[in-house]
């Protein structure tokens, strides 16, 4: 009984009046401190990472300032570094990826959320989750051996012959280029759009659909004109998530983009992305300005994905909360 009394005493809330060492004898306090230590480690790692990036990119900041973002010359011999071609390439490939992935992804999500019976929906979602797990180097492998020849032999003639006068379809095709990278990225980000959009659509309260149907709309009309707009913030969120993923993608892009730091209007031209140039040139950047310029690019990429991920999260939370509020 004495032991029970002691443990009961110790199980009470720790009051400030007990000395630190008394608390330490408590197993609980040790547990709290140990786990606190590990939790702080997480914060330290993150802070350390941002700090390292910032500190190790000081040279280009000093030398180029904001010009770094608008110069398009990347010349290691002359020590001239500008981020514009890489930012451009990252943006263009992501834009192409979204243009392809968003209609497909939302369409598939609508099917899974609205039409498919729960069993089918869950099974298909299972496979789509597996698709999201495929490593990016495998996408790169398939990109090199399937998508590149496809672009060169099928897509380029299909777009260039009728529309070759348009600046975006002009010029020769090498197989590799912005459009190839965009297509590979599209396949990689579709699963993210599908799974998040599906969740968001599922959280739209039944009454919304039923009200529309009661007013005489067809299934499609109720989906497209009522449910989807209701969930549109969340769907936006899924698109931002997909975009963040596309921006940071390294291996698949560097294997099919052509590795050319140039800005070109044509989608068939070769280009470069931030992640790809870091992967290719990091181990050989002789000279501090060169290396730090690459790290500065890494910082830019980090900030972009950080902002997008944050926005995405907010948008998704807003939508799912809206759904549960309306449900009452």
């Amino acid at each position, binding site marked *: 009984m004495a032991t029970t009394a002691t443990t009961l005493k110790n199980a009470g809330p720790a009051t400030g009046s007990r000395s630190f060492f008394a608390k330490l004898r408590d197993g609980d306090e040790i547990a709290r401190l140990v786990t606190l230590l590990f939790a702080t480690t*997480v*914060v330290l790692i993150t802070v350390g*990472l941002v700090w390292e990036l910032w500190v190790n990119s000081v040279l280009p900041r000093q030398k180029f300032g904001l010009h770094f973002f608008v110069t398009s010359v990347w010349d290691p011999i002359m020590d001239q570094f500008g981020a514009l071609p890489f930012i451009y390439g990252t943006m263009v490939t992501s834009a192409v990826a979204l243009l392809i992935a968003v209609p497909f992804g939302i369409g598939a999500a609508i099917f899974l959320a609205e039409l498919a019976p729960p069993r089918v929906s869950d099974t298909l979602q299972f496979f789509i989750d597996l698709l999201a797990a495929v490593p990016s180097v495998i996408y790169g492998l398939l990109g090199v051996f*399937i998508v590149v020849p496809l672009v060169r032999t099928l897509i380029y003639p299909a777009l260039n012959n009728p529309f070759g006068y348009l600046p975006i379809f002009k010029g020769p095709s090498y197989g590799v280029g912005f459009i190839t990278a965009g297509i590979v990225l599209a396949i990689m980000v579709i*699963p993210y759009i599908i799974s998040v959009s599906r969740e968001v659509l599922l959280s739209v309260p039944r009454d919304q659909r039923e009200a529309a149907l009661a007013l005489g709309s067809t299934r499609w009309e109720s989906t497209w004109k009522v449910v989807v707009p209701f969930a549109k913030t969340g769907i936006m969120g899924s698109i931002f998530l997909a975009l963040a993923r596309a921006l940071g993608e390294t291996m698949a892009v560097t294997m099919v983009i052509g590795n050319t730091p140039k800005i070109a209007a044509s989608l068939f031209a070769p280009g470069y992305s931030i992640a790809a140039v870091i992967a290719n040139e990091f181990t050989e950047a002789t000279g501090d300005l060169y290396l730090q310029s690459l790290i500065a690019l890494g910082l830019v990429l*980090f900030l972009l994905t950080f902002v997008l991920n944050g926005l995405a999260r907010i948008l998704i939370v807003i939508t799912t909360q809206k759904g549960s509020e309306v449900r009452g």
Partner: protein
Amino acid sequence: MSNGRLRWRKFVSNFMLAMTGVCAFVSVLVLFFILGYLLFNGGTSINWDFFTKLPKPVGETGGGMANAIVGSGKILLLASLMGVPIGFLGGIYLAEFSGKGMASVVRYAADLLNGVPSIVIGIFAYSLVVLPFKHFSAYAGSFALGMMMIPITLRSTEEFLKSVPRMLREGAMALGASKWKTIATVIVPAAYRGIMTAILLALARVAGETAPLLFTAFGNRFESHGWSQPTATLPVMIYTYAVSPYDDWHRQAWAAGLVLLGLVLIINILARTILSRGIAVPRS
């Protein structure tokens, strides 16, 4: 409402809904296409040699990827040993001990870390682990991958611990167990399945990562002994062989791709089936 117009609307409705079905099935088909293509191109190259031999000199045919397979295994093992305890114990802190302020800071940091592009993690690991010690090493690669495992482990541990029913907690407390004993012997085992799943999913995710290994583990022609030598890994080998001009290397790249994809998919399927027999996973 005229009949013609209604018929048109119904037609549009059926058509569009069919299209969404097409989108969904095509998306799923891509997965099977990838698997099938890898099987077709790499299946015949998966033989005993592939798993047991070292790479041959440039331009010669034959050889295998024994060192890369072992290398990947080593690095993943160490990465888990580094990342999982931090995520796990940190998650316990968030779920059981922390106040609101600290909790949001830690969660925010974890989300930030999760969103960092893997190439940037590679830069961080290079400056922190490779440069000061002056060599590429397995533990530099593990450090990079371990860091990537932390956020998923942390968030999932927190969510699963929180979802353990109050009854269990209160029952343990009523029996006189101290807080840490409750956690260790009651709550964690109850949430075990979910946490295990999260760890497996985190592992599957980093197993396929190539970019952070490019300038941490680097590469090795031979098996690497110990942890402080450059190490060959499966994803990096796939990349190197795929962009080369040698047909024999392409063949081996397909085989390696198949092995890697198979590994990742098996871990994923395993993790998800463990979970579906237990608690439902809260979507992140």
